[in-house]
C-alpha cells in the first residue's frame, strides 16, 4: 500500500455545482408561489398551479439543493477527515448522475400531478424506489470509504453523517409503504390516523436528519476550517450528538396536537421536543464558542458572516420549535403562516446560509483559485439577511393576525369574521412583504451564482489534477510491545481492550464503525417503536365508528383528483376541538372517521378553509362554479381556477385496480363492489349532474372530473351525524300578517 492518497475532488465539485443550479430553480419556484398566494391569476392550470408547484418548491430546495450540498460536503470533507480517497469512482458517478436525473423526474412527476399526497414525500412509488437505490449507493460509497480509511478515529462530522444515512433510509422506507395500482399511482399502506403519525414521524425527522444532522456535520468541518479555530468542546460534541439522535425521533407527533391522533402520542411529541432544546443548542454552542478568538475576523470575512448567521438562526429555530410544540402555543401557530415563517427561518437562515458560507469557502479551494469578489459576497450576505428577517417577521405577523381573526367572537356568540376570505384578504399586505423578502433572498443567490461562475472561470488549467496527500495506511492489529503471544489469547484480548479504552469508551467507539452505527440504529429505534407499536396494535387508539363506510368508486376517483391537484397544500381536513373551529366548520374530527383514508389529507396549512365538514354544506352546483371560477362564489378568493375539471373526463379504466389496491391495504370492498363499480359510478354521477342541471347549471358533466371531485367533497365529514351546539336563543319569527297568511303555500 502506498503511503499517499489522491482525493477525488471531481465528485464534490460536481455536487456543489448541481447544488447551485437547483438552488436557483427551487428558490425561483418559491418566489413564484409566494406571488401566486395573492395573485391567483399567475396560476396556469392544469400544470402550473400552487397545489402542484408548492411540492415542487419544497422538494427542490430540500432534496435537490440541500441534498446536493450534503453529498458534496460529505464527499469533500470525509476524504480529508479519513485521509483516503472515496471508495468507488463508479459509485460516485452513478450517485451524482442518478440523483440529478431523479430530480428531473421528480419535477416532471409533480407538475403533472403525479403525487402520493403526503408532504415532503410526494414522489410516486417508482421514484421512491429510485431514491432508495441511490441512497444505498451513497451508503455503500460512504461506509466503503470509512472501511478504507487511514485515520483510526471518526471525527464528530462523520458521526453526524452516519446518523443521517441510517435515519433517512429508515424514514424513507417506513413512510413510503404503499400499495401501487399503476406505474405511478399508489395508496398509502397506512390509513387515517396511523398515516398521519407515520407521515409526521417522517416529516419531522426529515427536518432532523436531512436538514439538521448532515448540516451539523458540515458545520463541524467547515466552521473551524473557515475560522481557523479549534472546536470548543469534544465532550459537548458527544453529549449533544447522542442526545440529539435519541430524542429527535420522538418529537414528530407535535405536528398533530388537538387532532384525532391520541393525546398520549402528541403529549410525548411535545415533551421530547422540549427535551430536544439542549441537544439542539449543543451544536449552536459548539459553533459559537469555536469562534472565540476569531470574532474580529467577522468584520472582514463574508464566509464567517454567513456561518455565524447560520448558527444564530439554527439556535433561534431550535428554540422556536420546542416553543411551538407546546400544546397551547401550537393551538395558535398550527395551520397559520407562523409555521411557514418557522420553516423558512430554519431552511433559509440555517441551511441556505451555511451552504452559502461553505460554497464561498470551498469553491476557490476546489478550483485552486481565489474568490472572484469578496465585495459581491458581502453584498449577497446583506441582501439575503434583510430578506430573511423580513420573511420571518411578515409570517409571524400574518400567522398571529389570522389566528386572532379565526377565533374572534362577538358577545352574542357569532364569529366576528364568519367569511374565511376576510381573514385571507387581511394578510395580503403581509404576503406582499414576504414576496419582497423572497425577491431579496433570491437576488442574493444570483450574486452568488455570478461570483461562483467568475471564480471558476479564473481557475488554472490544471485545477483538476487531484491533490496527493501523505497518509500511511492504518496498522490494524495492535500487538503489545515485545509480545510474542498469539493474537487470540485471553491476555492479548484484554490488552487490546485496555489499549482501546485508554482515552475513554467513546474514543474507543469512534474506532469501531459497526458498533457505532448499531448504537445509532438503537437510539433511533426506541422512540420510533414506542410511538408506533401502540398505534398499530392497540385498537383503543382509533375508536371504530359503525356509520363510517368506504368511499364509493366515484368518490375514490374524486379523491384522487383532490390529491392530484394538491388541495391539501392549502386546505386542511381536520377540525380541532376548539369552539372557534366547531362554530365555523362543524363537529370536531374523530379518529374513526378517517379509517378509509389512504393517504390521510389533514394538511398542515390553511390558506383556505378546512374542508372536513364541507360535505352537504353547499349545493353541488356551487362546487362546479367554484372550481371553474372561485371568484364567482367567493369574491376575493385567491384560489386558482380549475377549468379543466369541467372539460376533462375522469378516468374509469383504473377504478378496479384502485379498489383492489385499497382492499389490499384494508378497505373492505367486496368482489361485488368492484364488479359493480362502473354502474355505481354512473349512477352517482348522474344523480349529481341531475341536481346541477336542475339548478340551471352546465349540462353534460356526468363523465367529467368535476363530478367525481364534487362527489368526494359532498361526502366529506358526513358519515357521522352531528349538530351544532345551541348558542343563541331561537330567533322568534315576526308574526305573519293575517292578510298574507292565506296566500302562503304549506311550509316544508
Amino acid at each position, binding site marked *: 500500500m502506498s503511503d499517499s492518497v489522491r482525493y477525488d475532488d471531481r465528485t464534490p465539485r460536481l455536487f456543489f455545482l448541481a447544488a447551485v443550479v437547483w438552488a436557483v430553480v427551487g428558490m425561483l419556484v418559491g418566489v413564484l408561489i409566494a406571488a401566486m398566494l395573492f395573485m391567483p391569476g399567475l396560476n396556469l392550470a392544469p400544470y402550473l398551479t400552487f397545489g402542484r408547484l408548492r411540492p415542487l418548491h419544497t422538494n427542490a430546495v430540500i432534496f435537490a439543493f440541500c441534498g446536493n450540498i450534503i453529498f458534496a460536503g460529505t464527499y469533500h470533507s470525509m476524504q480529508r477527515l479519513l485521509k483516503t480517497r472515496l471508495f468507488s469512482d463508479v459509485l460516485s458517478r452513478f450517485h451524482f448522475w442518478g440523483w440529478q436525473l431523479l430530480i428531473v423526474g421528480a419535477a416532471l412527476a409533480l407538475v403533472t400531478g403525479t403525487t402520493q399526497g403526503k408532504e415532503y414525500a410526494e414522489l410516486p412509488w417508482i421514484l421512491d424506489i429510485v431514491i432508495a437505490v441511490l441512497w444505498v449507493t451513497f451508503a455503500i460509497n460512504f461506509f466503503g470509504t470509512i472501511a478504507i480509511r487511514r485515520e483510526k478515529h471518526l471525527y464528530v462530522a462523520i458521526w453526524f453523517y452516519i446518523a443521517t444515512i441510517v435515519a433517512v433510509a429508515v424514514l424513507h422506507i417506513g413512510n413510503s409503504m404503499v400499495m401501487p395500482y399503476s406505474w405511478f399511482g399508489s395508496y398509502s399502506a397506512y390509513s387515517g390516523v396511523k398515516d398521519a403519525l407515520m407521515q409526521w414521524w417522517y416529516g419531522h425527522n426529515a427536518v432532523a436528519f436531512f436538514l439538521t444532522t448532515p448540516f451539523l456535520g458540515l458545520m463541524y468541518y467547515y466552521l*473551524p476550517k473557515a475560522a481557523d479555530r479549534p472546536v470548543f468542546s469534544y465532550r459537548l460534541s458527544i453529549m449533544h450528538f447522542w442526545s440529539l439522535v435519541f430524542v429527535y425521533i420522538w418529537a414528530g407527533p407535535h405536528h398533530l396536537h388537538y387532532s384525532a391522533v391520541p393525546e398520549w402520542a402528541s403529549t410525548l411529541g411535545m415533551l421530547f421536543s422540549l427535551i430536544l432544546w439542549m441537544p439542539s443548542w449543543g451544536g449552536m454552542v459548539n459553533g459559537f464558542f469555536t469562534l472565540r478568538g476569531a470574532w474580529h475576523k467577522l468584520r472582514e470575512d463574508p464566509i464567517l458572516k454567513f456561518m455565524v448567521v447560520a448558527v444564530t438562526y439554527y439556535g433561534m429555530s431550535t428554540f422556536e420549535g420546542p416553543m411551538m410544540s407546546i400544546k397551547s402555543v401550537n393551538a395558535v401557530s398550527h395551520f397559520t403562516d407562523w409555521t411557514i415563517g418557522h420553516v423558512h427561518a430554519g431552511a433559509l437562515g440555517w441551511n441556505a446560509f451555511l451552504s452559502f458560507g461553505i460554497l464561498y469557502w470551498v469553491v476557490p479551494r476546489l478550483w485552486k483559485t481565489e474568490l472572484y469578489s469578496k465585495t459581491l459576497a458581502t453584498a449577497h450576505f446583506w441582501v439575503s439577511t434583510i430578506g430573511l428577517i423580513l420573511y420571518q417577521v411578515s409570517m409571524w405577523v400574518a400567522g398571529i393576525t389570522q389566528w386572532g381573526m379565526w377565533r374572534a367572537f362577538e358577545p352574542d356568540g357569532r364569529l366576528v369574521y364568519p367569511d374565511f376570505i376576510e381573514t385571507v384578504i387581511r394578510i395580503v399586505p403581509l404576503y406582499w412583504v414576504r414576496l419582497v423578502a423572497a425577491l431579496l433572498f433570491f437576488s442574493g443567490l444570483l450574486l452568488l451564482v455570478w461570483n461562483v461562475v467568475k471564480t471558476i472561470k479564473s481557475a488554472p488549467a490544471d485545477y483538476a489534477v487531484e491533490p496527493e496527500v501523505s497518509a500511511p495506511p492504518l496498522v490494524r492489529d495492535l500487538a503489545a510491545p515485545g509480545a510474542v503471544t498469539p493474537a487470540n489469547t485471553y491476555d492479548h484480548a484484554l490488552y487490546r481492550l485496555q489499549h482501546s479504552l485508554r482515552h475513554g469508551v467513546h474514543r474507543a467507539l469512534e474506532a469501531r464503525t459497526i458498533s457505532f452505527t448499531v448504537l445509532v440504529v438503537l437510539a433511533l429505534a426506541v422512540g420510533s417503536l414506542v410511538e408506533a407499536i401502540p398505534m398499530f396494535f392497540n385498537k383503543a387508539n382509533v375508536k371504530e365508528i359503525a356509520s363510517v363506510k368506504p368511499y364509493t368508486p366515484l368518490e375514490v376517483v374524486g379523491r384522487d383528483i383532490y390529491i392530484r391537484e394538491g388541495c391539501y397544500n392549502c386546505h386542511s381536513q381536520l377540525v380541532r376541538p376548539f369552539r372557534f373551529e*366547531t362554530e365555523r366548520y362543524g363537529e370536531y374530527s374523530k379518529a374513526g372517521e378517517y379509517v378509509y383514508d389512504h393517504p390521510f389529507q389533514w394538511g398542515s396549512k390553511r390558506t383556505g378553509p378546512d374542508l372536513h365538514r364541507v360535505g352537504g354544506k353547499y349545493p353541488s352546483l356551487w362546487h362546479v362554479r367554484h372550481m371553474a371560477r372561485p371568484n364567482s362564489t367567493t369574491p376575493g378568493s385567491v384560489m386558482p381556477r380549475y377549468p379543466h375539471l369541467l372539460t376533462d373526463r375522469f378516468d374509469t379504466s383504473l377504478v378496479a385496480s384502485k379498489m383492489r389496491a385499497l382492499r389490499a391495504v384494508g378497505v373492505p370492498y367486496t368482489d361485488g363492489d368492484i364488479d359493480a363499480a362502473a354502474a355505481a359510478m354512473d349512477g352517482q354521477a348522474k344523480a349529481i349532474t341531475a341536481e346541477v342541471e336542475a*339548478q340551471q347549471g352546465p349540462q353534460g358533466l356526468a363523465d367529467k372530473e368535476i363530478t367525481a371531485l364534487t362527489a368526494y367533497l359532498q361526502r366529506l365529514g358526513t358519515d357521522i351525524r352531528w349538530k351544532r351546539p345551541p348558542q343563541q336563543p331561537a330567533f322568534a319569527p*315576526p308574526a*305573519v300578517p293575517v292578510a*298574507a297568511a292565506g296566500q*302562503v303555500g304549506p*311550509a316544508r
Partner: protein
Amino acid sequence: MAEYEDKVLHELDGIKEYDNPMPGWLMAIWWGSLIFSAAYLIFYALSFGEGSMESEYRAEAQQALTEVQAHFDANPLVPPTPAELLAGAKDPAVLEKGAARFARTCASCHGEKAQGLIGPNLTDDRWIHGGSVGQIFQSVAKGWPAKGMPPWGRVVKPEELSALVSYVRSLQGSNPPSAKPAEGEPFAPEPIPGS
C-alpha cells in the same frame, strides 16, 4: 463568560478539538427540560381521561353558552316586526346595508341581482318557502339546510339580517336580466307603506 482551559485533545486534518466542559447554563436547560417533562408526564398520566382535549373543549363550549346566554338576558334579541321590515324597504340607509350584505353572502347562490342561480330567483312573485317578509326572515335566519340554504342567523348580525330582508323585499318585480324561471307558490307582495 467562564474561562476555559482550552486543552487540545485531538487534531485531524488541521482541525483541533478542545476538551472544554459543557457550559453550566446549557446543562441547566437539559436537566430542567427533563425534570419538567417527567413531572408533566406523571401529572398527565394521573389525570388520564380527565383534563384531556375533549373535556377542555366541552368546558369551553359550556362556558361560552353561559356567557352568550347572559348576554342575551341582558340584551334580549328583539325580532323586527313585519312593519319595520317593510318600512326598511324604502329607507336608503337600510337598503345600502342590505345590498352590501347581499353581495357578500347571498349573491354567490342567488345571483348578483337576485335573479336566481344555484338558489331560486328572489325577484319574482313565486316563493318556495313563503314570501311574506316574516317568512323570508325565517328562511334566512334558520335556513333550509337540506336544500343547500345555510342558516344565517348564527352568522349575520341581527340588524344586517333585517336589512337583508328589507333589501330582498325591495327587489320584488325588479325583473333582472337572465332571471331563473319562477318556482314555488304565488304570493302577492305585502305593500310597502307610503309607496
